[in-house]
């Protein structure tokens, strides 16, 4: 993946994530008790999910850029 495509993918992720952890995504999708996930109410699991997704997204972005940095 080229550097530009990585940048765009990350930017898109950030926009989606921001709406998911604040209004409106959190209000529309995240705000419910059921289904529970590993005993956690959905609203709790929703926030944990976005922490995990952010870790994966930034790790992938970093890996692709690291490849570009080493071999421009």
């Amino acid at each position: 993946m080229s550097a530009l495509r990585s940048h765009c993918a990350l930017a898109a992720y950030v926009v989606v994530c921001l709406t998911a952890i604040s209004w409106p995504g959190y209000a529309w999708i995240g705000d419910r008790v059921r289904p529970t996930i590993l005993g956690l109410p959905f609203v709790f699991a929703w926030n944990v999910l976005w922490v995990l997704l952010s870790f994966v997204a930034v790790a992938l972005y970093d890996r692709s850029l690291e490849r570009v940095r080493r071999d421009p």
Partner: protein
Amino acid sequence: MTSSAVVVSVSATYLVACLAIGMWPSKRTSDSATGYVAGDRSLGTLVMYFITGATIFSAFAFLGMPGWAYSRGVAGLYILAYGALGFLPFYFLGPRAARLGRHYGFVTQAEMIAARYSMPAIAGVMAVISVMAFVPYLALQMKGAGYVLETVTRGGIEQWQGAAIVYGVVLAYVLKSGVLGVGWTNTFQGIFMMALAWFMGLYLPQLLYGGIGPMFERIANERPELLRAPGLTSTGAPWAWSEYSSTVIVSILGFSMWPHLFMKAYTARSERTIRRTVVLYPTFQIFLVPILIIGFAGVLFEPAPPRADQILPHMMMHTELPAIVVGLFCAGALAASMSSGDAMVHAAASIVVRDGIATAFGKELDPHKERAWIRRLVVVVMLGSYALAISYRGSLAGLLIYAYGPVTQFFPAVVATLYARRISGAAVFGGLCAGIVVNTWFVVSPESRPFAIHAGAYGLAANVVTLLVLSRLTRPCSDDAFLCVAGTPPG
């Protein structure tokens, strides 16, 4: 009920261990200010990881956050929400700042911005804003430490005495060994806290409710309002979406602006270290999950604590836990307070000396004199925060949310410094002043806000508008060499 004496002696042993580990590396740094402040630019990924992590793992995490989950429900989850993206700006800003730090010898972010625009006054106003953010944050840590000792001694040591004892230890090791001491202490504490948090987060719901699932079932039935996003306000009314969302966004923008975190760009061994730390940071957020669960475990717990922020130690003292476990846990909470407090007091003092006295007022300080001044300021900042800690009566989380208002005002200035060509020094200065004035105004009189939005967001809007308008009216500073250094990777 658990024996106070064992709990206290376990905690005390822990404090001594901290002191020993904190003192140890002081032999290895050079005796210059760069050695004391920036650890000779030699911190590797492991230490960096635990410094940033444990700095976040503060008294807020162990007391304020469960206190919020307990009294305000899912509002406490906001720390997960902003943590998801909170460190990401540093991925871009950190390495650029590091290059400039190496090239020009900066060790603080204000020094860097003032040099870029050849305007020492910027460093002065940033020193003032930093102190406005650090003092309440440090007061939070002290108050938290006081709460822990007060609870475990069942009021035998009062909050103000507890804070004084714990921060006496912090004062000793920060004065002795500066940032590397802070680093090693945090590494030790980070590992320790993680293990304990998971153990307690799984054990307490099991003990009290028969598991995490049944616990939330009961909360959903008996206190359903606590599980409705985005949670409750301190008065128990539903929190407004606009205020929740703006608090999350202000915190995301402000997080990497904390001078004690931003300075890590100058202490890191390499850019790779900085990026890796950012990538790994959300893994620390996951360790907050059990702590939030512990807070929810308190919701239906009898007897209720004297203050919401004491729910965690209070619950531990009133369940049939072995005293050694309670002792270790309280030590973990103290450690959280100390590891954040030491980094903050250290950063605040260096900033007042380097940015306030040296840069803004143009005082020439040789490295040894500078180091002596930093030590003096460490004592002054400690005393100021201690005064606030013993006089402030609100919640710990309230102090934290207030602290983010001022610190977020650095964001536009840092981005302009590292990326923008057509911004002037006067505009950066004006933006910072407008931002902090508007923020402070709405903190002091929240009822005058046109919409329920975090005061820092109003400040940020005023800041950016002033920055852009003044840049149009004044001559931009086009120091291309500076941006060239920022944009050129080493090697």
